[in-house]
């Protein structure tokens, strides 16, 4: 990482593991439940959050010295909502097909607590470049967990990955279904997202005991 100083590189790397927004900061759980039933949605959401958090963090950081502290949460909310709505409108006008895929995520992004959480915890107290890196790092950390959860939910729940039938056809009984394997429909329901996230938290903390809180 010649480009970044050690401290800056940590902004990207820490959220990927020891300071992960979902498993350690426990932010963004709601969207981790809502959109991890299939891999494609999880990837789209991760990329969208990457954009919004990266740009939003910079904007908030640039405004940090003029935002009145009494109404800072409202200001943050307005910034992120305006940002998302403008992007949504532009996509609707110039990339309609793409906007239809993304429109479901617009509401989820505005209310995503990772975004507000990073504005509040980082961008309000740091410069734009570091805030940008923090935004990128945290959304990558968020995306990694989302994709891991979605991978298992789609594979075990529907027997597909990105829509491809990797395990064979459950109706025609080909592939593993020929041996009596059945899809676990429960994996598609929201509670299983929590349980998968729980397992990830368990694995992560048992490998690094410093993360365990008293």
């Amino acid at each position: 990482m010649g480009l970044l100083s050690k401290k800056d590189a940590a902004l990207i790397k820490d959220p990927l593991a020891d300071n992960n927004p979902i498993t350690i900061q426990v932010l963004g759980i709601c969207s981790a439940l809502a959109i991890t039933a299939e891999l494609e949605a999880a990837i789209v959401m991760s990329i969208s959050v990457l954009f919004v958090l990266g740009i939003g963090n910079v904007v908030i950081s640039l405004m940090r010295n003029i935002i009145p502290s009494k109404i800072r949460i409202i200001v943050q909310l307005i910034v992120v909502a305006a940002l998302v709505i403008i992007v949504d409108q532009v996509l609707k006008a110039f990339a309609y097909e793409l906007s239809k895929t993304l429109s479901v995520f617009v509401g989820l992004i505005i209310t995503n607590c990772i975004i507000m959480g990073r504005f509040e915890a980082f961008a309000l107290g740091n410069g734009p470049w570091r805030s940008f890196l923090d935004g990128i790092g945290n959304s990558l950390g968020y995306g990694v967990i989302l994709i891991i959860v979605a991978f298992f939910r789609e594979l075990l729940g529907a027997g597909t990955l990105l829509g491809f039938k990797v395990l064979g056809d459950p109706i025609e009984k080909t592939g593993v279904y020929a041996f009596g394997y059945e899809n676990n429909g429960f994996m598609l329901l929201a509670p299983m997202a929590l349980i998968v996230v729980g397992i990830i938290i368990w694995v992560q903390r048992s490998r690094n005991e410093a993360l365990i809180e008293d």
Partner: protein
Amino acid sequence: MSKKTDSNIYTILFAIAMVIIVGGLLAFTASALRPRIDNNERLEKQQNILYAMGVNANDESSAIFVSTDEAPELFSKYITKQLVIQGDDVTEDPEAYLIDVKKEQSSAKAGNKRRLPLFVGNKDGKTFYIAPIRGKGLWDAIWAYVAMDANMVVQGAYFDHKGETAGLGANIKQRYFMDDFIGENLMSNGSFKGITVAKGNNDPKNLEKNDNEVDAIAGATITGDGVSAMIKSELRQYVSYFKTLK
């Protein structure tokens, strides 16, 4: 220590300035982009209607519309008549496809007589009657374009939604769900019965076309129920028109 940004006056002025700037920005974007967005929505409606009657660019497994460049031309080629049904009155209206089904539903609730758009298409000598319908899913609106023959047997359908759960309810716009409707009869013994999205109907390959049922999507019960309810309440209103065709 008291910063100047902590004072009440500053806070109020900041809030006012922010509202004006952000409001203006949003209003400007919305009105500047409105014509383009309207045009995109119009093309999408044409694509949806054509899709339902089998004019599409589907490959083996995914639903693909005809391109937006071709849509207006194909639309005027395949859609021979656009009707507006209001009670017993049937009138032709070349812009019937722009009728907002949502507005018609609320005006019908207010006691007005509802205008029902119906598009008559012709492809390879076969006549299609395509009805736009709208209902409620789990989170938000769902809608569909259903192509039928004169006996109200479904010939094709396109479903879409505003915000159903990705991976579950959102899959109503997948081919494996929509294609199940093809060949299903909306009538049963001469009266309207609709099509129910049924769980565990022992017919996952959907070979039985006269059972008024298609197979549900696992994990999307409420969206599926919404689809059943939408088909029942909306397409029922077209029955009297279809009776006049015989």
